[in-house]
C-alpha cells in the first residue's frame, strides 16, 4: 500500500527493505511451523500462518517495487494505465494479506477459540478496510489498533516473564507500530516514508535478533 507514495529516489532502498521484511517474516513463520510440528499446538500453527500472510504482503510490495522500477515496456498510455491497475490490485492484496496476518496474531493473543468469532473478526477487519471510501487511512487505523492490542499482550508477557528475549520482541513490535503510524502520515511529507522504513527495519531486525540462540 505504501509504495504508491514512495519517493522515486528512495524506491531502490524501499525494495531492499521489503526483501528484508519478507525474509525475516518468512523465517519467523518457518520457525513457528517447525515448533508446531514438534508440539502440535494450534497457537503455533496460527502464529506461523499469520507471519506467512505478513511475509506474502511484503512479497506483494517488493514485486510492485520491481514493477515500478522497471517500468512499462513501452511508455504508451495503455501501458502506464496497466501498471497503475496492477499497483491498485497490489495495494488491495497487500491490505488483505497484512490485515489477515495481524488478525490471526490477535486471535492468538486474545485466545479466541470459537471459530465463528474468529471468522467474524477476520471478515469485519477486511470489509471495514476494503469497503471504506478511504482505504489508505482505514487500513493504517486498523493496523494501528490491531498492533496496539498485540503490543499490550506482549508487554504483559514480558512483565510476567522478566526475560530479555521477551522485551526484545516488545521493542520489535513497538518499532513496527511506529513504522505503521509514520506510513499513515506520508500525505504530510514523503520523508515519513523513509522514517517508516527505518523504524520497520529496526523492528524486523530486532525480531530476528530475539530468535538468536544463546
Amino acid at each position, binding site marked *: 500500500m505504501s509504495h504508491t507514495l514512495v519517493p522515486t529516489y528512495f524506491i531502490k532502498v524501499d525494495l531492499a527493505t521489503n526483501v528484508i521484511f519478507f525474509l525475516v517474516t518468512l523465517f519467523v513463520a518457518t520457525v513457528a511451523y517447525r515448533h508446531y510440528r514438534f508440539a502440535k499446538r494450534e497457537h503455533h500453527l496460527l502464529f506461523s500462518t499469520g507471519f506467512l500472510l505478513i511475509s506474502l504482503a511484503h512479497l506483494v510490495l517488493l514485486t510492485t517495487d520491481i514493477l515500478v522500477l522497471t517500468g512499462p515496456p513501452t511508455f504508451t498510455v495503455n501501458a502506464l494505465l496497466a501498471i497503475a491497475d496492477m499497483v491498485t490490485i497490489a495495494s488491495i492484496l497487500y491490505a488483505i494479506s497484512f490485515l489477515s496476518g495481524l488478525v490471526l496474531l490477535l486471535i492468538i493473543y486474545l485466545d479466541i477459540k470459537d471459530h465463528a468469532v474468529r471468522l467474524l473478526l477476520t471478515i469485519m477487519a477486511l470489509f471495514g478496510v476494503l469497503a471504506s471510501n478511504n482505504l489508505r487511512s482505514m487500513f493504517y487505523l486498523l493496523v494501528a489498533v490491531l498492533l496496539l492490542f498485540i503490543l499490550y499482550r506482549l508487554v*504483559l*508477557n514480558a512483565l510476567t*516473564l522478566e*526475560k530479555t528475549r521477551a522485551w526484545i520482541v516488545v521493542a520489535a513490535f513497538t518499532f513496527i507500530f511506529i513504522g505503521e503510524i509514520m506510513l499513515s502520515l506520508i500525505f504530510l511529507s514523503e520523508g515519513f516514508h523513509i522514517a517508516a522504513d527505518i523504524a520497520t527495519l529496526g523492528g524486523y531486525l530486532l525480531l530476528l535478533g530475539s530468535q538468536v540462540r544463546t
Partner: protein
Amino acid sequence: MLHDMLEAIQAKGGQIKPTHLLYKANLSHDALKRYVQELTDGGLVEFRETKRGKVYALTDKGYDFLSQYKQFREFSESFGI
C-alpha cells in the same frame, strides 16, 4: 512431567539411578514405572546395566528431544504464545 524427568536425567550427566529419579521426580514407584515406560517406548530413555548398577540413560533421541523442547519453550515464551 516427562520433560522434567528427562531434564533430571540430563542434569545427572545423562544417566541416573532409579532411586535418584524417584526422589527427583517426587513420584510413587508405580507412577515412575509408568512414565519411564512411556519414555523407553518413545526411544528417549534406555535402561542400562553399569558398574555403578542399573541406570536410566538418555538416548540420542532423548538429547535431541530436550534440545528441540528448549528451542520451543524459548520461542513460545518470547512471543507469549
